[in-house]
């Protein structure tokens, strides 16, 4: 299977961005989140009142800002890949660190949101809505942290100039993971915070 993939990639202008191994991971993560989202849809359809009651207690300001932070992070890491492709090393590294910083902003705001819920006595066992809310947001929260670690690691590695035009696999791999985290959040934001 892999041989055909690598072969076709080398003879075909279409190529997998970054490392194929990361894409297996990304697809697995998308599958988990996808099933989780569908489970949410199923549970909500069977008990809309509980979900509506829970959603009414969610403020929209912080998650909207968080969405903007993640999207900006995605833009920044995408720009970093292009900067490396142009061999603009300093700019590229700064853009990577900007992504990490934006992720940190997300984490801080999210912690505030979690603290509020915790103070209100909300736990995974409160009801089905809060179970999904906490499960999905916390699970995603951990992914943001992992994304920051991956992008941060690439930013550190980048100091020796290893990512150059034609040598972009490592940074593309990290960027792909971050974009996945962003993609999942976009759906999560619409589903948990907005849709009712």
């Amino acid at each position: 299977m892999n041989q055909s993939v690598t072969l076709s990639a080398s003879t075909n202008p279409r190529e997998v961005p970054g490392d194929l191994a990361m894409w297996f991971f990304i697809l697995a993560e998308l599958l988990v989140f996808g099933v989780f989202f569908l489970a949410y849809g199923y549970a909500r359809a069977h008990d809309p009142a509980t979900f509506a009651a829970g959603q009414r207690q969610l403020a929209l300001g912080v998650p909207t800002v968080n969405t903007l932070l993640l999207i900006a992070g995605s833009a920044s890491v995408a720009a970093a890949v292009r900067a490396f492709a142009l061999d603009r090393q300093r700019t590229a590294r700064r853009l990577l660190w900007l992504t990490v910083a934006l992720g940190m902003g997300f984490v801080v705001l999210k912690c505030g949101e979690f603290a509020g819920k915790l103070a209100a006595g909300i736990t995974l066992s409160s009801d089905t809505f809060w179970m999904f809310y906490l499960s999905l947001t916390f699970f995603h929260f951990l992914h943001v942290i992992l994304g920051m670690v991956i992008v941060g690691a690439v930013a550190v590695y980048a100091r020796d100039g290893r990512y150059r035009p034609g040598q972009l696999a490592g940074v593309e791999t990290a960027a792909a993971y971050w974009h996945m985290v962003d993609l999942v959040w976009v759906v999560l934001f619409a589903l948990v915070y907005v849709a009712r």
Partner: protein
Amino acid sequence: MSTSTTAVLDTPRGVEEHAATRLKYRSQAVAKPYFIAAIGLFFGQIVFGLIMGLQYVIGDFLFPEIPFNVARMVHTNLLIVWLLFGFMGAGYYLIPEESERELHSPKLAIITFWVFLVAGALTIVGYLSVPYATLAKLTHNEILPTMGREFLEQPTITKVGIVLVALSFLYNLSMTVLSGRKTSVSLVMMLGLWGLAIFFLFSFYNPTNLVLDKYFWWYVVHLWVEGVWELIMGAMLAFVLIKVTGVDREVVEKWLYVIIAMTLISGIIGTGHHYYWIGTPGYWQWWGSIFSAIEPIPFFMMTLFAFNMVNRRRREHPNKAAVLWALGTGVMAFLGAGVWGFLHTLAPVNYLTHGTQLTAAHGHMAFYGAYAMVVITMISYTMPKLRGREANSRGAQKLEMVSFWLMTLAMVAITLFLTAAGYVQVSLQRMGTTPMPFMAAQDQAATYYWLREASGVVFFIGLALYIISFFVKGKTDEAAH
């Protein structure tokens, strides 16, 4: 090779010399007694399986000499112990070859073997000769009560022994790996074996609180069979595939990493499928269902992996039987662990099927397909080498392949009949407005239990032929080289 190693090899001198030419490292020979013990205990496991199968339909068979609970304890404990012997044998064979050096201490490996065998045998004799409560008293279970929980029935002192054996084994292998070449296969194998030892420590935690007891009991059982054991299985399969197909190690190893990554991504939280009805919070029904729904994927990948590597082989290995076992492992692990696991893993289904014959059906095919078969794959590949030849004679291989089909098809039949019995049980006892009492429902499934027992006899015949195949003489088919 140390003198003590030579002593237990028990092979004619000529063969012994020949063996040295087949083995890359002489100390790999310590694997041989482990594999022989594994097969012997496997035989015992099946004998007790047949006894239990008969007790399902002739309830008072061998009562009160061997009550069902004793037979089951022997059946399951022999399974675990023979698989552990298999893993250890595999470790002793595989690690020196991967590390490109002799084993740190062959002598320690042989001592460990005898300690483990004697401790295991004494425990089984204890199960069979005295009432379990007496065994608990004799072994001072009251000091640290750990007995009487499913699969962890061993007296506490035996559990301590298992830990010591595991430590000696891990010390021996770790020292070998540390001073030699570090390959992905050996690292994954070591990670799996260390994980096995570490999670076994939870067997010493037995709180009075039944929910906590059950919760952490699964830290041993689930994180073994759907976690670290799969690393061991993956490493063993990868090792054999590299050897018999000649496919580039890099290719095999990167797929190994991808597959076991999927295994742990799905399998660790997948533990949640055991936390639906034992007093744990309701959210486990969601978490467990979601993650265990993707647990079949790594098994499917492993099947594709095995077939892909064999299809891309760069050599025709003369040991056809080993290749067959390797492919069989891929398929049967997917069917048993993947498909039959998925069948009842979603919480709404499991609500009805939890604790029925469906669980038994899944358990049988998964253990056989994933773990019994991977150990036999390893034995099939290594045993000829340990006995001084690249592969067995054509006749011996033919018989081994017949035994493969008999055992495998018999296990498929056992699984199907237990599934049918489970279906009868669920529909009569769990569903409807006037559910049947347990024993009344069991009586309705009697036909399927008889068929299961018949399939068990076929399995036993297959196993007997497998053992006989070791004694079939004849020349290796040199043309196949």
